[in-house]
């Protein structure tokens, strides 16, 4: 890590608790680099997380941080954003935290288009509790609660975000780091609800259960199975099975919730 980035970390809290080969440090590093590239004032940023491996990240980050309850980071973040609209509010969450127990908060945050950036660390499994399948565990993949393969159909979180009303949606991976940083930068600059799904690696639980136990193998899997949005457009449904589509899915403008809220206050007070 560059010396100049150290100011973004709580160095005294390191080493982190993530397993060797975990991709979460790369996602966290990508966020820090995006913030650094944009020269954002770090005292005007608030990072909120829920529960799980992903949600440990704010513990290592030297910003205003809030570690909350399982699945509820977006609800807390909504409160922060409404109380302090001048803050840049970032939610770090995981696939279980965001799409299972927090799924309802996620779709409603999308629907409101509130100006919050959500980064979903998608390791395809509940890592913290040792490998149960999550709503993003691919169909047929193995988990401690699916020893013969997962029969639950998984969400496409980006499609879900898009359908629910988010206005910036992108997916990157911890293999394609410069691109991931770019997506996070764009999400941070976006006015409205922005979602970046960062496909991460969990060699300890997802890997071991799915014959991908080495971190290198998992990285190679991300490299070999990722296709760009452009390439995916020309591929059939069958060809896209088990592929990770990366890129920007949506970047549009729509009325932002806090601004609309302020407007209605003004109107109700007869100022308009």
């Amino acid at each position, binding site marked *: 890590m560059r010396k100049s980035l150290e100011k973004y970390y709580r160095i005294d809290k390191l080493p982190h608790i993530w397993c060797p080969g975990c991709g979460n440090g790369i996602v966290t590093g990508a966020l820090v680099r995006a913030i650094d590239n944009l020269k954002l004032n770090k005292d005007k940023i608030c990072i909120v997380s829920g529960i799980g491996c992903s949600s440990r990240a704010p513990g290592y980050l030297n910003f205003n941080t809030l570690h909350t309850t*399982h699945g509820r980071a977006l609800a807390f973040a909504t409160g922060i954003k409404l109380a302090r609209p001048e803050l840049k509010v970032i939610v770090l969450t995981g696939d279980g935290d965001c799409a*299972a127990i927090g799924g309802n908060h996620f779709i409603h945050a999308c629907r409101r288009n509130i100006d919050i950036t959500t980064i979903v660390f998608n390791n395809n499994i509940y890592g913290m509790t040792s490998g*149960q*399948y999550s709503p993003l565990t691919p169909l047929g993949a193995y988990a401690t*609660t699916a020893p013969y393969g997962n029969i639950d159909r998984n969400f496409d979180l980006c499609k879900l975000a898009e359908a629910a009303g988010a206005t910036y949606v992108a997916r990157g991976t911890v293999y394609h780091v410069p691109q991931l940083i770019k997506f996070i930068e764009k999400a941070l600059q976006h006015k409205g609800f922005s979602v970046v799904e960062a496909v991460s690696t969990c060699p300890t639980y997802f890997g071991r259960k799915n014959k991908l136990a080495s971190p290198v193998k998992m990285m190679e899997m991300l490299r070999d199975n990722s296709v760009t949005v452009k390439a995916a457009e020309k591929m059939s449904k069958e060809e896209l099975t088990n592929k990770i589509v990366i890129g920007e899915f949506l970047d549009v403008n729509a009325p932002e919730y806090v601004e609309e809220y302020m407007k209605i206050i003004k109107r109700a007070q007869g100022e308009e």
Partner: protein
Amino acid sequence: MKTKVALTGNEAVAQAMKQINPDVVAAYPITPQTEIVQIFSSFVANGEVDTEFIAVESEHSAMSAAIGAAAGGARAMTATSSQGLALMFEVVYIAASMRLPIVFPVVNRALSGPINIHCDHSDAMGLRDSGVIQLFSENAQEAYDNMIQAVRIAEHPDVRLPVMVNMDGFITSHAMDVLEVLDDETVRNFVGTYVPEDYLLDAKNPISMGNFDMYDFYFEHKRQQVEAMKAAREIIKEVGKEFAKISGREYGLIEAYKLDDADVAVVVLNSAAGTAKGVADELRAKGIRAGVLKPRVYRPFPQDEIREALKGVKAVAVMDRAETFSTCGGPMFADIRNTLYDLKNDIKVVNYIYGLGGRDLRLEHVEQVFEDLENIRKTGRVDETVKYLGLRD
């Protein structure tokens, strides 16, 4: 047939669930409970049980799914800890008021915040007034035995209430312990086949459940729950006696350890009872008449048994692994002092809060408690009613 095995508390509970072979288990992962349902899910996957296992998206859904299954006449279970139980809060009351015999282990863990994953009893105490029966387990053996008995207690026609089986997070759930397990057939015969009285989707006897209940009948329904809890006191003892016949281990509402001639006594739940008994033995060797009272059942509260067990004691220390923030001590302290009030024989009762968030309870701590009790007994004076053990100054 009985077999001696080495299992962790979580493994022992999963084993009990396997032998009970419930119809439906719905669960969500949470430390330190996760292992129970994870191990159990492998029994399901391997066809070792007939259970339908539902991996739901939150604990609220886990208890809700168990309620749905139980309302449909199934033997249903779930399991959780801490925040998971807190998230279930709303539906645990529904399970109790709908009189559904759901058995659910709770691996006790501190409630947030600050976030912590280690043992205390704040999770269970949060639901002490919900109308569920609460059993506590000192070790893996008791957790296993309580699970099996819980099914019979919950499903008894005079009771029909959910039963929460508690054990200490990590201390009991993750530590390897030697215990005696029964063979599958004995357990299956003991728990029997569940025959629900009324259930949904019974075409011959259609009913509706969970109805709107105003000031006309709500009160009576609540009173009926109290009656069921009262009945549970006797049923728990009956089931305990019957369990002794298959296991050689009899269970009552409380365990009175060396209390017959005790001058001083400690009242404590779960694994810390083992620590307290060890200290009491050491003190007895030095001539101090120390005893321990371990409530096995916390709801319904075994008032008569506790009053009987403590009536000859001069000074009692209630050890609570939870705070109430009433500024008047822990939850069990209030219950015990209330229980002893009618005796009018001036038993001094003090309170110690210990072990919050997994803070270790050391032998020296319990020795200190007994030493304090001896001083109170000799001087008849209590300087401080509520104290904190092993807390930084």
